[in-house]
């Protein structure tokens, strides 16, 4: 019986399918999915927290949504741009023909490699393709022939199969290998783009958005509850304060956990 998944699962499966042109985007989608879950649970935490008044919740819950959406939206948009700039962008028509194509840095590097030679006078692209084939064959030799005593499909002839796929009978690099090298090379740029986006998004964008929104949330809470502000404020790292405040150890419950994640950000 064929599996007929709902549309959302279908889309997700589509972005999971092995298409080298999408490798970077897949990483982006999975990471964004984790961020959506994290933002939803943070907002949920604010919504179910009994210590927060209904009036504050009216402000906190939308604030949680807006912060999460801004964070994920900016991260997604920025990373998509970076990936497109590095890998190049190809838009297809519905019938599979190319509608428009924009070269990225990867295409520039490939172009440079095909036009230039190394010190020994060999074409850079050709050298790279040969290295790629040698690496793949070396990897094929290390594949497990059996797992837990059960034989895998990678039998004794596997290295020969790989060789025949990647090399012509005269030992030169086959067209299939050239295609594979090009797609792997370009997909590597896409992955690098996803990494750069994740680093910039997670290490710079998220703290800026989180800390600034936390400041406004705090100010708003203080405005509604003036007694919060009037309390003399003691710095956290004051030895007299530490013992009483820091070890707030309660048994772990769902609500407790939600309150915990609300203080910082849930990481997935």
């Amino acid at each position: 019986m064929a599996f007929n998944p709902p549309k959302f699962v279908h889309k997700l499966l589509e972005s999971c399918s092995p298409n080298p042109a999408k490798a970077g985007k897949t990483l982006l989608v999975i990471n964004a999915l984790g961020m959506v879950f994290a933002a939803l649970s943070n907002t949920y935490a604010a919504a179910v927290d009994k210590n927060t008044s209904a009036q504050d919740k009216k402000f906190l819950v939308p604030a949680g949504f807006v912060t999460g959406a801004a964070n994920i939206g900016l991260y997604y948009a920025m990373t998509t741009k970076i990936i497109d700039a590095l890998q190049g962008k190809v838009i297809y028509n519905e019938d599979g023909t190319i509608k428009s194509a924009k070269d990225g840095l990867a295409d520039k590097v490939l172009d440079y490699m095909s036009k230039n030679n190394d010190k020994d006078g060999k074409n850079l692209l050709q050298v790279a393709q040969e290295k790629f084939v040698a690496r793949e064959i070396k990897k094929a030799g290390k594949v497990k022939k059996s797992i837990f005593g059960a034989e895998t499909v990678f039998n004794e002839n596997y290295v020969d199969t790989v060789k025949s796929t990647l090399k012509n009978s005269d030992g030169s690099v086959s067209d299939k290998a050239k295609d594979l090298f090009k797609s792997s090379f370009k997909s590597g740029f896409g992955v690098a783009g996803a990494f750069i986006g994740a680093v910039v998004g997670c290490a710079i964008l998220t703290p800026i958005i989180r800390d600034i929104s936390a400041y406004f949330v705090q100010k708003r809470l203080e405005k509604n509850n003036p007694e919060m502000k009037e309390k003399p404020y003691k710095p956290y790292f004051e030895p007299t304060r530490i013992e009483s405040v820091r070890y707030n150890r309660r048994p772990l419950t769902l609500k407790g956990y939600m309150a915990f994640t609300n203080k910082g950000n849930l990481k997935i």
Partner: protein
Amino acid sequence: MRINSINQQQNKQNFKANPATWIAKTVAKYPMIPVGLAGSSVIAQKIVMSGSEAVVGPVMDVGIGEVITKVTKEEDGRTRESSKVQAIRTFSQSTGGTIVGVIIRMICIGAATALCMKAGQKTGGTIADIVNKNNEMVKEGTYIYKKNMETWGKNIGGVVATLVMLGTNFIIDAPFINWINKKATDIIDNKISKNKKDGVETKEKEVK
């Protein structure tokens, strides 16, 4: 020939003027780096992402706290102080989250790859219908089949790991991150108390 050489010269000049070309030149020396990156999964992404967050995040927190304090001319410096607390928490979260996240991702991706590899061989199975629709093993050979199944495993495993982590965050991450947070705070507290003590002692000596 001459036109060609002029063209080449122009090409070279264009290459020099463009910073992208400088990058192209550098990357062209190490073509295996992008090829190696192409096989990366969410595990590598998590390590790169959280590793950099563990280093940059706390600095950012303290910096932003400082900026807000200055811009709003806060007198009691509560934003500055709480940003320090947040900095430690950011460090603990990214360290703890990376360790647990990487282990769970490895388990999920390993399991998903093995499942795809096994199920894809049967024709007509539910999973085979999705992962091996075109029957690549017969059409393209074992090599392409293996490559594709590994990619399926990495991606599906990554999505599954994200779902699994919604649960493990409660069971494993929260106490583990609290533990790291406590340890990190202890270390910093000790250092601060020691510095204060030293400061007092030196002042006393000066008085004497």
